[in-house]
């Protein structure tokens, strides 16, 4: 579904991502993990054409860089961790914009299919009560769910999540990951997410890409990648025993 080959990103002549290659198939959930500065966000930014890169990114055989913006949006959707909405748009208006790529021409109105998708997105994200509310009045979690609903309305085949739950509390984290797990079950779909929390990665991911300083350390199924020795190498500490230690605190009680 997605092929990334020899991806290299230089910013101000510093190599942030160095010759990274990986691929993704339907129904896979790829977790991109690694310490700060590993280049995780930069990779997803490059895939969604946010920054210039060298190497190739192809989606279902076609070069992503050559896709028309609307075609790209129908294929790949991106959810970032922060949103700076400047004005008091309603939840519904923000979700509605997810259908932008499907409209054509200047005078296009939303058709029945659009309305159905919008309603469904609002429903499954539990935003019905907030529908007409200004996004400026929402909490961080509600705002993040609004943009998740927008993506569901956008209905891409590949979903890219850039630390979407970074500053959300546990309840929202769980809600979002469950929603996305449900979403990816459908055929033709796949998810790439950048995560910090290795437990979350292990719990929801099917595959993983472990990075350090812009280079791929390991790529493969989640259990192959997140091994004790890989993690020790990357984080320079015994992550495994620390995690177990943390977890045992809960078990003792």
């Amino acid at each position: 579904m997605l092929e990334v080959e020899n991806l290299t990103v230089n910013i101000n002549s510093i190599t942030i991502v160095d010759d990274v290659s990986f691929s993704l198939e339907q129904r896979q959930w790829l977790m991109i993990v690694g310490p700060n500065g590993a280049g995780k966000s930069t990779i997803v930014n490059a895939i969604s054409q946010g920054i210039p890169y060298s190497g190739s990114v192809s989606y279902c055989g076609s070069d992503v860089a050559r896709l028309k913006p609307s075609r790209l949006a129908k294929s790949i959707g991106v959810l970032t961790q922060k949103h700076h909405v400047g004005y008091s748009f309603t939840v519904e208006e923000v979700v509605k914009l997810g259908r932008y790529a499907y409209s054509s021409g200047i005078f296009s109105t939303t058709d029945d299919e659009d309305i159905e998708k919008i309603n469904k997105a609002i429903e499954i994200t539990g935003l019905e009560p907030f529908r007409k509310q200004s996004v400026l009045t929402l909490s961080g979690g509600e705002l993040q769910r609004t943009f998740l609903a927008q993506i569901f309305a956008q209905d891409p085949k590949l979903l890219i999540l850039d630390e979407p739950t970074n500053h959300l509390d546990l309840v929202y984290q769980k809600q979002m990951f469950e929603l996305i797990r449900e979403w990816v079950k459908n055929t033709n779909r796949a998810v790439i997410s950048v995560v910090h929390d290795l437990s979350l990665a292990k719990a929801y991911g099917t595959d993983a890409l472990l990075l350090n300083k812009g280079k791929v350390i390991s790529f493969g199924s989640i259990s192959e990648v997140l091994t004790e020795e890989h993690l020790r190498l990357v984080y320079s500490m015994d992550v495994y025993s620390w995690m177990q230690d943390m977890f045992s605190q809960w078990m003792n009680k």
Partner: protein
Amino acid sequence: MKEKSEGFKPFYYLLFTAITLAVMVLSICAGSVNIPLKDTLTAVVNAILNLPIEEGAQSIIAFVRLPRVLCVALVGAALSLCGGAMQGLLRNPLADGSTLGVSSGASLGAVIAIAFGLYIPRLEALGTMGMAMLFAFLSLVIILSITYRLDYSLSTNTIILIGVIFNMFANSIISLVVAFAGERIKSIMFWTMGSLSGSSYSNALTLLIALLVFGAAILCCSRELNAFAIGEDNARHIGVNVKRIKMIVLISVSALIGVCVSIGGTIGFVGLVIPHMTRMVTGPNHKRLLPASIFTGAAFLMLADLIGRVLLKPLELPIGVVTSFIGSIAFIYIFYSSRKAR
């Protein structure tokens, strides 16, 4: 539940048109000189039907007041639309031609045109207008590229700071040009202040054409501007052709500001205050905000001009004084409330 159109509904069009027309009628009827309603009416009708106009009171209406009110309304509409579009595009409620320094840039272009005699024979206004448009666009490109480089999130502070600095920069170049301009000095000094008091029908026609062409271009981008107002990255992610839309909006805005500046000089704050106040009524959706801003901008500037004409009569108060007075107060208010909201 079924709500197909999020745009400007016919009822609102009627309402806003009615308000604008009412203000226009008021502006035509009231003025520095009191003219009986009957004469006013005859003069307007005759002017529209291209019939001969009587001297005196009727010629005041037909040749002085009517073209002026039309120009003021069109300039107000254009500036307000530009302000609304910029505020959406840059996701910043304080963005406007005057705060960003685009108007100063346009003035600079026009001043250069005057100083170095860049005009096309028989179409003298075209040289200044073209240069004003060109420099407005260059200013926008310079301001935005500096801002993007400094602060990708385009925060209010950065934009305003760059705008202030660019304003000073453009004004200093204007002074420099004036210093080299020799005997044309006086003409330029006055030009940079501009005046709508000598407006003619041909000015109004130029403004109307510009507004129809570039205003339509901006209105066609309403949906994309909504996406920009939510966030430029988000706009890109949902499939907006970010570069193309930015180009269309920036070119249209510069062209409109260039035309307005070359006809009426820099009139501050209209583009800042009006879209903001309109947003309070229509909400931030550009499909409603932009059409509404056209009407409110026209009405506001006509009222400001009316105040300027009658407050100290027989003296005139320049329109910019009125708008700047209202505008600076509104600026502080918007700045304050946008701070508080965070």
